[in-house]
């Protein structure tokens, strides 16, 4: 590998990953980013790891446990509101 076309440093690239992944990057910067990726295995792995991280974070949403029953306090509040404030 040569440094040709690597005017973007790895150190700069890692700061741009979120903008790149959200697609808010101007086309010229995007091209520079992708040009760097073509030539730099470490940054390709880094980007892949950021994608993996985002995927793992998303898994925190699907709770394996079913939701607990709705708290009695809330159902009471609901019924009180219905009796009191019913229009």
């Amino acid at each position: 590998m040569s440094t040709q076309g690597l005017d973007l440093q790895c150190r700069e690239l890692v700061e741009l990953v979120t903008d790149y992944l959200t697609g808010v990057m101007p086309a010229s910067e995007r091209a520079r980013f992708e040009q760097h990726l073509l030539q730099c295995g470490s940054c390709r792995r880094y980007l892949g790891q950021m994608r993996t991280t985002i995927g793992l974070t998303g898994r925190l949403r699907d709770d394996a446990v079913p939701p607990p029953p709705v708290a009695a306090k809330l159902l009471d509040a609901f019924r009180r509101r219905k009796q009191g404030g019913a229009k």
Partner: protein
Amino acid sequence: MGTADADASDDLALFARLRDGDEAAFEALVRRHNSMLVRLARARGLDATAEEAAQDAWIEVLRCVDRFEGRSAVRTWLCGILVNVARAGARKEARSVPFSSLGADDSDANGASDTHEPAVDSSRFDLQDGPWTGHWAKPVPDWPTPESAALTTEMTVVVQRAIASLPSPQREVIVLRDVEDLSAEDVCGVLELSDGNQRVLLHRARSKVRAAVEHHFSDAISNAGKRSS
């Protein structure tokens, strides 16, 4: 996308029934979204009182159910209510607690731009002048591919812990964006952040979580090395 859209329209239908006083619809909404509100409350730093904050938010939902205009998704609106309720709670507490003992408050949500926290520690890069300056000093190591369920669970636990240790503005943004899958625009609205700040907070949060996973694996690799020697 398809299921998210279907969920959003289910939410709207449930919400319409709630307005008409349908208890089952209320229960269904709470079952669906309470864990999201609890996660958001935790992300605000209300670890001990997160469940309580979520309950307060639901009571507030009942109070202002007629004010929902459908301009945002139900989920986004619920998050906004939780944030408002938590803020009101914090203000009440602030009156009884000496000011100096209040930790990171939402006032430092703008702390995004103050100190420069690099995504990757600068020691990882070649800092000497030359053609390679700013490039990785050592190649970035591969991660094991999370193909087994056990490894995925292990990595998810690492991610969860890493998120729990983030400062609260970063934690809130990553929870809403990457866990709850809210749009950048919605997150800016809920947390009252500028788009730029939101992006910086998200980037820092994701970078730190990635680093935590990397750290976990490098520990695992060196421990395995020790064990076999």
